[in-house]
């Protein structure tokens, strides 16, 4: 779903005012991204909820003392 016609259909359905020349230019960029994202379906994410925040924290993690130095 990332050929120029597909993008034009999506733009039309959602009321996005985007000229066809732009869609033609973007189609390969979006196609490559969508292919990358499609491959991610097979990653072992079944135990992972969406992250939503940049990181989980609750203070410095164990072993955070930098410097395992003497």
């Amino acid at each position, binding site marked *: 779903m990332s050929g120029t016609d597909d*993008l034009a259909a999506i733009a039309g359905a959602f009321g996005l005012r985007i000229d066809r020349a732009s869609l033609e230019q973007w189609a390969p960029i979006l196609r490559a991204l969508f292919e990358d994202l499609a491959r991610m379906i097979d990653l072992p994410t079944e135990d992972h909820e969406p992250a939503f925040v940049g990181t989980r924290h609750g203070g410095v993690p164990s072993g955070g003392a930098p410097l395992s130095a003497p």
Partner: protein
Amino acid sequence: MSRLSHAAEALAYASIADLGPQIRSRALSPVDLVEAVLARIDRFDGLNAFITVTADLAREQAASSAREIAAGRYRGPLHGIPVSLKDLISTRGIRTTSGSRIHAEHVPTHDATITTRLREAGAVLIGKAALHEFAYGVTTDNPHYGPTRNPWGPDRIPGGSSGGSAAAVAAGLGPASIGTDTGGSVRLPAALCGVVGLKPTYGRASRHGVFPLAWTLDHPGPLTRSVEDAAIVLQEIAGPDPEDPTTLGQDVPDFSGTLRRPVRGLRAGVLTDPYHEDMADDVRAAFEEAVGMLRSLGVQVERVRFPRAAEASAAQTAIIMSEAASVHERWLRDRPEDYGADTRARLQRGQFLSATQYLRAQRVRALIQDEVRSLLRSCAVLVCPTVPCPAPRIGEDAVVIRGAGVKVVDVMTRFTRLWNFTGLPAISVPCGVGTGGMPLGLEVIGRAMDEATVLAVAYAYEQATPWHTRRPPESASPPPG
């Protein structure tokens, strides 16, 4: 150069750590300091580092600081220190444009939490720094306010999106600026301009009152000329803020107090997976020398691989595109013509991603965060170059790296964006000189909420090398106007 000029230049390039005690003892007046900085801002107007210079306010705040200090009410290391803010950080009563036409006349009624904290620390606001439009780009070649220039070469970009902040700090137009970093926008301009840029852990510094690019990737952070100054500024802007729930539940350590901890015996992972091997020859040479220096400081260096770097990069792209498109949804519908062409195109492309694609990217993010956490059990820090090539020329869309042409927009954030994705703290510190004498940066990444170790390693490296003492040629800056 006259003795007076030497003195003015020395003042312009003094660190916060040096200026603070002079101000506290009243050997230096904040009024004289701010006048020196304002004169220099005027002289280097051609860099286009600022969208708004708040000269009158700065003079008022400096005079007020001087009175308070004379009355024995010294507030701390930022009291009387001139600082600037990237022009998407809200300042009550002062225009905050976000580098856009849409917000060209926007005057906030409230300060961002960071603005409030700096004000309470006694910092003097000298201006609102230039940025890529809405922070969505890496060049700071702004269609509405003109291009910002790199003090090391006025035909070169300063990087972005916090390009004005980096150019200002590098040119001695104040010792510190606050930027924001969504894919590298603090660290990469810092690297290209030869200064220090720190992206703290996600949630360390409040985003309240900072115009968003992508909510789950945005990180405010300081740009300074030394690692010690980055620690000083971070101390003031870090901490819980009820207005930004992602900051809650943290303790803020004494970053300056831990700066000089020994690094001998520390384990550092050098990222050597294929994703992190793609860089220009001059960058590789400087990076290998930097790793050698870390070794000579007693750091135990080992080669490590970032898990699923390509997938992380693609997922990060999907997240920034989706969130940015959502932030701008109404304006994209109602006034798309008010955006510059590059920013509009990036935002509009984001409207084609589906909810399931966005959520898939966020689940992959959770997976990779766990895997990177495992990597950081055995290593206290990771290191890589900050940017794969030196600063491109203004207007250049592509650069050649090892014989292959690559788009500037794709390559500049290659080594920085993964740390927005993981939310981990990362700093860029000057590490050498590339083609054309342009600065290069070393990136040090640490565990969540462990900026102390990141700063300690960066400080040890900085102090062992001469790069932080280099200054851009005064003649390299174009004349005012």
